């Protein structure tokens, strides 16, 4: 091809999107994001393998070593007022956070994405109904409703009768008491993803390459999967990263209020709350889980920012 040609049209244009390899390269250039991702992996691995390397269980009480400070004889992070090992509790709390985050991601991908694709692809009344529900969901006092739903589920599991309560009870056995949290995640966490994917679908559907695919004889499935979905990967990824902290927060807040995981299982939220009862005498008890929670959320945030910058072709390479 002539040099004039390659200098011609391509020079002035910015590519609308980036190739996967390019994204990976750009992401790896963002040192903060990369380090954050590595630390997150480390934390998750440590939390889920804690039974292997810890001597004490999160529920083991030991009246002899109550309220021991960190870095003392009673374990790396000390003990709480019942003499339970804070490190073991912290690791279990992280597991719950990860479980909530993973389930939240699942809801977004398994409910939000298909719904957004359907609404965007089909349009019509499906679209109207889905988008009206999204509007309502976004204008609702989320945390309060979440706690209400949590309260309801807790009572159903505890003393409900009938088929629904039975189902909830068996789910509760599987989820180690996190059922209310999971139900709330299902109720709320498809919303923003559906909205984003729906908007993106409409944009992609209007582009020529979708028409081209039609002209080639492509059916709806191929168009949605190969053309629309592939062009939605960037906003989906970013949205997942942005909502992970919110899912963790939901679990922590619900557990802290008593409609999440049951004691003695420790959620980070529960640990912060219980520690705060002794904030004047033993501030480390609330400080340790607080800092852990904030750190994990921040790391996720950094990874999300890195992904967003790496996926956005208009930003220059960052630090």
């Amino acid at each position, binding site marked *: *091809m*002539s040099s*004039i*040609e*390659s200098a*011609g*049209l*391509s020079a002035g*244009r910015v*590519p*609308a*999107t*980036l*190739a996967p390899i390019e994204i990976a390269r750009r992401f790896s250039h963002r040192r903060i994001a990369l380090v954050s991702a590595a630390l997150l992996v480390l934390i998750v691995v440590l939390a889920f393998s804690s039974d292997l390397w810890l001597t004490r269980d999160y529920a083991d009480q030991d009246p002899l070593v109550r309220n021991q400070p960190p870095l003392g004889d009673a374990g790396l992070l000390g003990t709480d007022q019942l003499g339970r090992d804070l490190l073991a509790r912290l690791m279990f709390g992280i597991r719950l956070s990860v479980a909530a985050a993973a389930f939240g991601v699942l809801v977004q991908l398994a409910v939000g994405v298909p719904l957004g694709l359907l609404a965007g692809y089909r349009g019509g009344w499906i679209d109207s109904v889905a988008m009206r529900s999204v509007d309502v969901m976004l204008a609702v006092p989320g945390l309060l409703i979440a706690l209400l739903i949590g309260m309801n589920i807790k009572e159903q599991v505890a003393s409900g009768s009938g088929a629904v309560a039975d189902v909830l009870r068996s789910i509760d056995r599987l989820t180690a008491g996190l059922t209310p949290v999971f139900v709330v995640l299902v109720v709320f966490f498809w919303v923003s993803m559906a909205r984003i994917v729906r908007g993106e679908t409409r944009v992609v559907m209007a*582009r*020529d*390459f979708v*028409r*081209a*695919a*039609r*002209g*080639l*004889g*492509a*059916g709806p499935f*191929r168009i949605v999967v*190969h*053309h629309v979905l*592939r*062009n939605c*990967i960037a906003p989906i990824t970013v949205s997942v990263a942005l909502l992970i902290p919110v899912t963790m927060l939901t679990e922590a807040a619900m557990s802290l209020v008593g409609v999440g995981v049951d004691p003695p299982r420790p959620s980070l939220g529960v640990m912060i709350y219980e520690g705060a009862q002794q904030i004047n005498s033993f501030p480390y008890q609330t400080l340790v889980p607080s800092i852990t929670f904030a750190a994990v959320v921040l790391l996720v945030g950094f990874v999300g920012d890195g992904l967003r910058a790496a996926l956005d072709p208009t930003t220059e390479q960052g630090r």
Partner: protein
Amino acid sequence: MDDALRIDDLVKEYPIGSGRRRSIVRAVDGVSLRVRRGETLALVGESGSGKTTTALCALALERPTSGEVWIDGREVTGMSPKELRSLRRQAQYIFQDPFASLNPRMSVREIVREPLDIHRVGDSAGRDARVAELLGLVGLAGDAAARSPHQFSGGQRQRIGIARALALSPGLLVCDEPVSALDVSVQAQVINLLMDLQDEHDLAYLFIAHDLAVVRQIAHRVAVMYLGRIVEEGAADEICAKPRHPYTVALMSAAPARPGRGVHRERIVLTGDPPSPIDPPSGCAFHTRCWKAADTCRTVRPPLIELDPGHAVACHFPVRRDTELG
């Protein structure tokens, strides 16, 4: 032998607005065309004249309001989705914007292979071989397959689009201004490629254009559209040398004449924009801009009449080349 494409009295209307202000636009208003095998018919007109809509309806990418479309002797209108799929093997579309018409998330191989995958042509290895063959055919290097479209220039991307359109060996290509988004220096290369491909594969082209220089080079016949109707149709040489409809005359005079061909002509400049298709003028739609317009033109719509063999014009007062403006 059947025509590669025949369009009979095609009408396409779009609803616009909503509620009380809802109304209907006739983008295409009774267009009839035929493209013979191995022939290029250029469809010429300003933007908004309905030429792209006609092309989209021709390949069932839009549903016509009324009228019939025949491809290779098979009626397209009212085909089941399954029949339409098989139609796609006979007729393909090349888009104007080479940046928008290739999925940026696919590799060139995936893009060119897609028609083969959709129609399950051969096995995987066979398809890859065919992709390599097609890329060679359109003049792209073998390593192009593994790259992604944004690594290519506009002209190269248009070649990729052509390779994709050729994958199923169609007999008809509808080219929607395939070079108008490209640099002038590149346009000729792509046009030459299209002409070579036509010779080698006996392709028929419905070639949409507004650039008459390109039309002169590639077209066998020309149809001129104005506000959803065909106003003049005939052999390319004749239309270019002796246009009869005032609108065509104006278009031709605006286009730079080929050096060494024809005589010096007075330039006729069209003033104003084409009228809105929402509220088209009565009678001859061109009367608002026509220098020959008379009272009749404002009330009576001129029919498309064959003045010379193979040369039809829709005008009450066709231009006579020898006496006027010569």
